[in-house]
C-alpha cells in the first residue's frame, strides 16, 4: 500500500513514456517511392532499429561516450574518494570551507558551467590558453583530440564535490572502534584508509559508479554547448545528441525513438551488469564480509 505512490509515479513518468517511445519506433507514416505521395501509417517493425544500428554517426557517438565513461568514471571515483578520505582523516584544515568549495560547482547548472568553461577554452578569449601560450605551451582545448578531455574536465569539475559529500557521509558511518583498532594494530593512516575505510564504504562506491555511469551515458549539455564553439563536435557527438538531432533537425521521430530505446537498453544492461557484479564480489567474501561477521 505504501508503495502505491512509487508505482503510480513509475508508471506515469517511466513506463508510459517508454511505451510511447517503443510504439513510435515501431510505426511510421510512410510515403512509398520518393516520398512525395500521400502518407499512410504502417508497421515499420525493426526498420528504425536497423537504421540506428547501421548509422556510423550513432555508433561513433556510442564509441565517444564509451571512451568518456572510461576516462571520467574512474577519475571521479578515485578523486572523490581521496578527497573524502582526506576530509575524514582531519588532514584538511578548514574542513567546512573545503567541503563547501568542493560542493559549490555542483550547484551551478550544467549549462552555466559549460558557458564558463567555454570562455576558458576558447583561444583568443581565454586567459588560461594565453598564459600557457606565453609559457611556450600551445594548446587548443577545442581541438579534435583535446575536446573529449575538455568535456571530461567540465563534468569532473561539476560532479566531484557532490560525490565527495556522498563518500564523506559514508565514511562518517564507519565505526570509530574499527579505525582505532587498526591504529592499535599498528596501521598508519594510509593503510587504515585503504584496508579498513575503503572496503567499508564499498556500497557508496558502487552507487556513485552507477549514478555516474547513468549520467555519462546521457551526456548532452556540455558537448551541445561546445558544438556551438567548435565544429569538431558535430551535431551527433553523443547518442543523446544524436536523438535530439534525429527528432529536431531531421524530423525523424521514429528514428529518434528507436535511438532512445537503444540507449535505454544499453543503460539498463550496464546498470544491471554492474549491480550483479558488485553483489557477486561482495558475497565472494571481501573485507566487508569479514567485518560483518
Amino acid at each position: 500500500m505504501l508503495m502505491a505512490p512509487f508505482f503510480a509515479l513509475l508508471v506515469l513518468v517511466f513506463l508510459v513514456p517508454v511505451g510511447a517511445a517503443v510504439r513510435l519506433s515501431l510505426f511510421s507514416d510512410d510515403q512509398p517511392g520518393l516520398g512525395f505521395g500521400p502518407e499512410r501509417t504502417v508497421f515499420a517493425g525493426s526498420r528504425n532499429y536497423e537504421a540506428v544500428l547501421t548509422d556510423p554517426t550513432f555508433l561513433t557517438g556510442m564509441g565517444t561516450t564509451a571512451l568518456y565513461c572510461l576516462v571520467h568514471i574512474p577519475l571521479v571515483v578515485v578523486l572523490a574518494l581521496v578527497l573524502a578520505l582526506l576530509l575524514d582523516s582531519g588532514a584538511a584544515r578548514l574542513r567546512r570551507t573545503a567541503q563547501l568549495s568542493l560542493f559549490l560547482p555542483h550547484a551551478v547548472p550544467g549549462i552555466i558551467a559549460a558557458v564558463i568553461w567555454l570562455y576558458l577554452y576558447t583561444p583568443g578569449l581565454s586567459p588560461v590558453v594565453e598564459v600557457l601560450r606565453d609559457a611556450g605551451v600551445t594548446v587548443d582545448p577545442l581541438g579534435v583530440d583535446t575536446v573529449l578531455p575538455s568535456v571530461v574536465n567540465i563534468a569532473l569539475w561539476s560532479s566531484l564535490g557532490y560525490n565527495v559529500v556522498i563518500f564523506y557521509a559514508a565514511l562518517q558511518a564507519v565505526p570509530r572502534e574499527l579505525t582505532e583498532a587498526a591504529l592499535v594494530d599498528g596501521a598508519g593512516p594510509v593503510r587504515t584508509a585503504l584496508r579498513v575505510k575503503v572496503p567499508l564504504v564499498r556500497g557508496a562506491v558502487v552507487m556513485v559508479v552507477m549514478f555516474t555511469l547513468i549520467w555519462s551515458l546521457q551526456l548532452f549539455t556540455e558537448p551541445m554547448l561546445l558544438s556551438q564553439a567548435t565544429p569538431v563536435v558535430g551535431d551527433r557527438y553523443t547518442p543523446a545528441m544524436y536523438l535530439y538531432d534525429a527528432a529536431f533537425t531531421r524530423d525523424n521521430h521514429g528514428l529518434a525513438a528507436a535511438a532512445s530505446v537503444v540507449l535505454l537498453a544499453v543503460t539498463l544492461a550496464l546498470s544491471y551488469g554492474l549491480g550483479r557484479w558488485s553483489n557477486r564480489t561482495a558475497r565472494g567474501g571481501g573485507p566487508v564480509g569479514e567485518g560483518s561477521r
Partner: protein
Amino acid sequence: MPRPAFRALRTLRALLAALAVLPLLVAAACGGGGTGARETGDDRVHLTFWSALRGSQEVVDAYNRGQARVHVDFEQVPSGQQGGYAKLSNAARAGNAPDVATIEYPQVPGFAIDGVIRDLTPLVGERLRDQLLPRALALTTFEGRVFSVPMDIEPMVFLYRRDLFARHHLRLPRTWARFEETARRIKRAAPGARIATFPTDGGHHLAGLAWQAGARWFDTAGRTWTVSMTDGPTRKVAAYWQRLIDEELVFLNPVDTQAGSAQIGRGEVFGKLTGAWDAGGMMAAQPGQRGRWGVAPLPRWDPAHPRVGTHGGSTFAVTKDSRHPRAAMDFIEWQVSSPQALRARLSSGVSSQYPAATDLVAVAREAMDTRYFAGQDIYALFRREAAHISRGWTWGPRMTATLKTVQTGLARAGDGEGTVLGALDQAQRSALPDLRSLGLSVRAGPR
C-alpha cells in the same frame, strides 16, 4: 511572527506556484507568435510570410501599398541553419505554419516529403513558367510537380583580388589545372598568403564543386532515391582538393566566422570560390577593399564544355496549412518576377543576387554599383555562367543533416584527422539509414 523555517516554506511555495505558471506563460507567448492566415473585419485576405532574407520587410511593404485585396503580414525569422527550418517544421506540426515560407534549394525536397509545403503545379501559370530559368525550376520540381518557386539562382564564380593578381603578374586561371599552378606560384611569391580557402564549414561549397564536375549525389530515377556522394566525379573533386590541402596550397578553415572574414581583410587570400550573391556579400563585409576585387568564371575541368554548380539561392513555398494558396501564389509570383519587388529588396542594401526570373536580370544589373569591381559588368558574367549550370543535379531529402555531417568530417580534417573523401563517405553512410527509416525507397549508388 512566523519562524524563519515557516517563512522559508512560504517563499518556497510561492516560488513553486510561480514555476507552475511559467509553462502557461510560455505557451501563451508561443501561441501569440504564429498566426496563420485569417480573415479579419476589413475583408482583406491576410497572408503571413516568413523569411530570413534581408529586405523582405521592404518587399512586403511595397506589395501591401500596391493593392488593396490582400494584406501580407511579414515575420522575420532566423536563417535556416540558425533554427529557421526547425521553427517552420514545428509550426507545420502544430498547424500554424505561415502561408508563405522561404526555403533554400537543398531543403525543398525535405519539406515536400514531410508535407510541410504543397504542390504548386496547378497554381504556377504559363507566364511565370516562361519567366523562370528552367534549370532553377527543375531544382524545385519532383515527379513533375513544382513544390517551390525560385527567387534567385547562384552560379559559382571565382571572386579574386584584382590588385594582388596584378602585383604578382598572375593570369586568371581558366581551368582547375591552371588554378593549382597559380596556387603554387602564389604560395612561393607570398608565403603567408594562399589562392583561396577550402572552407571546413562549406558543405554547400563542396556540393557545388562536385555538381560542376558532373556528380549526382542524389538521383530520383526509377522512383528511388539513389545516394552516391562518393561517385566518380566527386572522387575527382575530393582528390583534387585533398592534394591542394596536403601541399598547403589553400587554407583549410571555416570561412563564415570572424576569423575567416579577417583572413580576407588582411589580404591573405587572393580569391574566394562562391556563389554570385557573395559579390554583394564581399561589398558589405570588406567595404575598404573597394575597386580591388573582380569576378571571374569558376575554373573549368574541360574548357570545351564549360559547366558550373551553384552555391546559395532561395525559393518561396506555400504551406499545406495555408487557407489562401491562390493569393499566396500571387504574392510569390509578384515577389520573384516584378521589378518593383526587386527594387524594394535592393533598397534595403546592396545585393548581387542573380534573379531566377530572366527579365529581372536587367533590373539587378542597373541597380549594381560596379565601382567595387573596378567597373566590371558582373551581371553580364553571371548571365553567361548561369547558362552553364550543370543539369541533372538533385538535392536529397535530408540535406541540412547530410551537409552538416560533411562539415563535421571536414572540420576534423581541418584539425588533421581525416580527409575530404572520408567526410563525404561518412555523410553517405549515415544518409542511407536515415532515409530508409523514413520509409523512402533508397539505394546506394555507384562508388
